[in-house]
């Protein structure tokens, strides 16, 4: 039995970190050692998942995703912009995340903190590497004008495992998105908003997150489980089983066996997740 106490961050952040009672930590760990979880799930089960698309009319694409009580509103909006200098014939995908203060007593108002930035960047990496969009098709005038697609993650209730919800919801939202049809006439860009077109979606990657608690790997950690976990591994996978992204989190290390075991589980579980799309 490890004697590790909840590590405290120093300074002002400390008050915002919820300190898990030792009793709770022990009870969760004991259950998991017996292959059980506090909410009755097995180590392999996701909580209830629901996705609604097209929920925000002003957004060209949108989704509300729930995993358990974790809830994220996702909006997709296109903007015309200049391409990056080194990729002049390719559109741009940008992912931004806000951990709204209403979502948790531990979220403060202000510019994105490290948790928010990590969530946005991991989601973005998974989407970009698949790739979810054929960005070349989003080029309108090479070197001058391309479509910039903004995916905005608005976390409204945090109850554990934001990453899987963010990726699942983003894929649904992007698949739901219709942007104005852009054509070039006489060197001018003409946008036809009356006849919007779907985004050029190529791949639909999904992510599975596992938490390590006392040598057991459990999928889709709840808030309580995240608060006591030793480490976390998230694996992004395409439909054909290729790994397109990975992120390890948490303060303790993982072994190679644990990571490969998570990879195998992901292959199986992304099939299930895909049914929600």
């Amino acid at each position, binding site marked *: 039995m490890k004697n590790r*106490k*909840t590590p*405290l961050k120093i300074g002002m952040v400390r008050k915002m970190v919820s*300190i*898990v*009672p*030792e*009793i*709770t*930590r*022990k*009870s969760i760990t*004991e*259950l998991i050692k*017996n292959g*059980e979880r*506090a909410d*009755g799930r097995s180590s392999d089960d996701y909580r209830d998942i629901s996705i609604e698309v097209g929920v925000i009319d002003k957004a060209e694409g949108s989704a509300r995703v729930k995993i358990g009580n974790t809830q994220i509103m996702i909006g997709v909006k296109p903007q015309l912009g200049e391409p990056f200098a080194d990729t002049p014939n390719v559109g741009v995908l940008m992912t931004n995340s806000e951990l709204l203060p209403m979502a948790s007593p531990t979220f403060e108002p202000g510019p994105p903190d490290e948790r928010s930035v990590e969530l946005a960047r991991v989601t973005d990496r998974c989407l970009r590497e698949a790739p979810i969009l054929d960005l070349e098709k989003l080029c309108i005038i090479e070197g001058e004008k391309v479509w910039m697609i903004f995916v905005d993650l608005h976390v409204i209730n945090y109850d554990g495992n934001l990453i899987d919800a963010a990726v699942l919801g983003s894929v649904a939202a992007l698949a739901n998105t219709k942007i104005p049809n852009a054509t070039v006439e006489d060197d001018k860009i003409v946008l036809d908003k009356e006849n919007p077109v779907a985004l050029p979606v190529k791949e639909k990657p999904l992510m599975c997150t596992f938490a390590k608690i006392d040598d057991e790997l459990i999928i889709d950690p709840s808030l309580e489980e995240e608060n006591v976990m030793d480490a976390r591994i998230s694996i992004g996978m395409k439909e054909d089983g290729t790994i397109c992204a990975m992120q390890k989190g948490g303060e303790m290390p993982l072994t190679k066996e644990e990571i490969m075991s998570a990879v195998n589980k992901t292959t199986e579980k992304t099939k299930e997740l895909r049914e929600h799309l």
Partner: protein
Amino acid sequence: MILVEDKALVVPGDVLADEEYYAGRGTFKEGNNICSSLVGLVAIRDKKISVIPLQSKYIPKRGDVVIGEITDVRFSMWNLDVNSPYSGILPASDVFGKEKRDLNKAFDIGDVLFLRVVDVDEVKKVKLGLKGRGLGKFRGGILIYITPTKVPRLIGKKGSMINMIKDETKCDIIVGQNGVVWVKGEPKMERVAEKVINMIEEQAHTSGLTDRVRNMLSELLGKEIEEETEDVPEPDIDNKQG
């Protein structure tokens, strides 16, 4: 004149009665009227009209027994979270007397204790104490958080509700007046108790609850449960062993 019935659901600003009545908890006087300040159920006792809130924070009161978690260890005291906007302090002298000792050796961050609220001053600084039968540190078990206003409902008349749960699940259960509940028993039974307690919290404002709780226990435990007779031994809320 009274404008609402007993147990009516009211919201802030609702006019309840006129000057013939006294303004109790959850109400305020405005001119000749008594109005509700909360979302809650009207309680009329003689000429006093109160509103029992459905949702509220725990505000520490002298004499309360509460379950708290240590959040900080200082030079001569511990800081505790008692599920309230106001944290409490437990002076080291309560545990060590006049000797100077290493506080960590007694209680450390994350430990959960059963304490008494010794004093609350005008700016709500809370002093806690451990002197009393049954007070002290919890070992093992699980914690459940409920709205503090629902504690009486969870305990039941003369403890009937909480005793039914204790007897059927064979768990030790201690209910802090601050809405924190400690349950210890066989792990499966702890989860049964947790489910039942959460259900009571959700439905505390309804009637017929006792029957539904009995049915839920029957279902979860797979057996019939007898209705309690009136000969229920009266438990003491201060009795941690109960």
